[in-house]
């Protein structure tokens, strides 16, 4: 992990084993499948449900500041706590939580490299015990919106053509062949992608064991699509969570300075009247 721009944001399973009883560390499981935690989880871990606890459940938005403060307070987290996030599907939604915690200025947030999958594959200890922690009075910072892209910025990016757009959905979603991931409900009126976007499915950043690919592999993967840190980058997917995983990779593992996550993503763009849409495969990267 040492080659990464910010290796301190990753811990491996061995590190976590040695910190299971560390009072300065709070372990949080965030899964795509919100019931997975109940089947057995890392001892001492609490769970956050992305469907109800990591979003505004009234209007479409990330977690409001006050609700984030309440969640962290209930979780026994202080400003000095090291939060280690892990989850299923290669930390897909753990990265979503990471992104929001960074927006609200929590300093020490880390991902368990390999997530729940690696922990299970290594035959490590699981428990059904639900821990409880002494509540705190957590105060978050004002949101850092430099980590987040909104529709006007994406429209501007398309118009000027100076920002790299990374579509991290599956190739079939990118071309417009399907309007949602296979087996999930369609959530847009039109299929395709934002004009000029490059297709780099989020899962390509991971090895078979769920860990992140090496710095050199990641650099080659994104570099081949012209994403090399020479300009701003906006990642997007369907609802903004897969793209938070790619945002994490680009910003923390490769060290790109200007990366934002467009969480409106295709469920916003693909439902808008009058915005440009491209279908089919991406055009070749210009030299």
């Amino acid at each position, binding site marked *: 992990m040492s080659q990464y721009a910010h290796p301190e944001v990753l811990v491996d399973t061995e590190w976590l084993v040695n910190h299971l009883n560390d009072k300065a560390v709070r372990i949080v499981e965030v899964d*795509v499948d919100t*019931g997975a935690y109940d*089947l*057995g989880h890392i001892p001492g871990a609490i769970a956050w449900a992305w469907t109800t606890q990591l979003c505004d459940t009234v209007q479409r938005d990330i977690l409001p500041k006050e609700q984030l403060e309440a969640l962290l307070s209930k979780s026994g987290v202080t400003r000095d706590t090291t939060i280690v996030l892990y989850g299923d599907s290669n930390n897909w939604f753990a990265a979503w939580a990471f992104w929001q915690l960074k927006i609200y200025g929590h300093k020490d947030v880390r991902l368990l490299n390999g997530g729940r999958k690696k922990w299970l594959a290594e*035959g490590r200890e699981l428990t059904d015990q639900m821990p409880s922690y002494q509540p705190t009075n957590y105060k978050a910072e004002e949101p850092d919106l430099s980590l987040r892209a909104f529709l006007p910025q994406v429209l501007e990016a398309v118009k000027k053509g100076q920002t790299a757009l990374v579509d991290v*959905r599956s190739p079939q979603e990118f071309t417009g062949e*399907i309007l949602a991931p*296979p087996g*999930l409900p369609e959530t847009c009126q039109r299929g395709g992608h934002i004009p000029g976007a490059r297709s780099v499915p989020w899962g390509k950043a991971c090895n078979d064991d769920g860990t992140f690919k090496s710095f050199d592999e990641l650099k080659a993967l994104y570099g081949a699509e012209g994403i090399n840190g020479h300009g701003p980058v906006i990642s997007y*997917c369907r609802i903004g969570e897969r793209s938070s995983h790619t945002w994490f990779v680009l910003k923390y593992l490769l060290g790109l300075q200007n990366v934002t996550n467009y969480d409106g993503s295709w469920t916003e763009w693909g439902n808008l009247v009058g915005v440009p849409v491209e279908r089919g495969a991406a055009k070749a990267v210009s030299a």
Partner: protein
Amino acid sequence: MTGEATASGRSEHFSERQIELNGWPVRLTSYRVGEKYVCQADNISPGACLARFSAATAEEAEAQAISKARHLLGKTKRHDV
């Protein structure tokens, strides 16, 4: 997501394999925890959980996960591009 089981112990017999259902690649992840066997079916790209079941045997858990995943994938429409 039914047949919830809770247990303490270590995960055992972790395995993954890929199959095809209704023309879509699906990853089956199986393991045992305590007295229960768990099987989860994901659409490989993007990797979202389609179904997860736990049961007293690995075969039962897998059969239920495949059945539900097949049902969901059967609803996916392919559009002309």
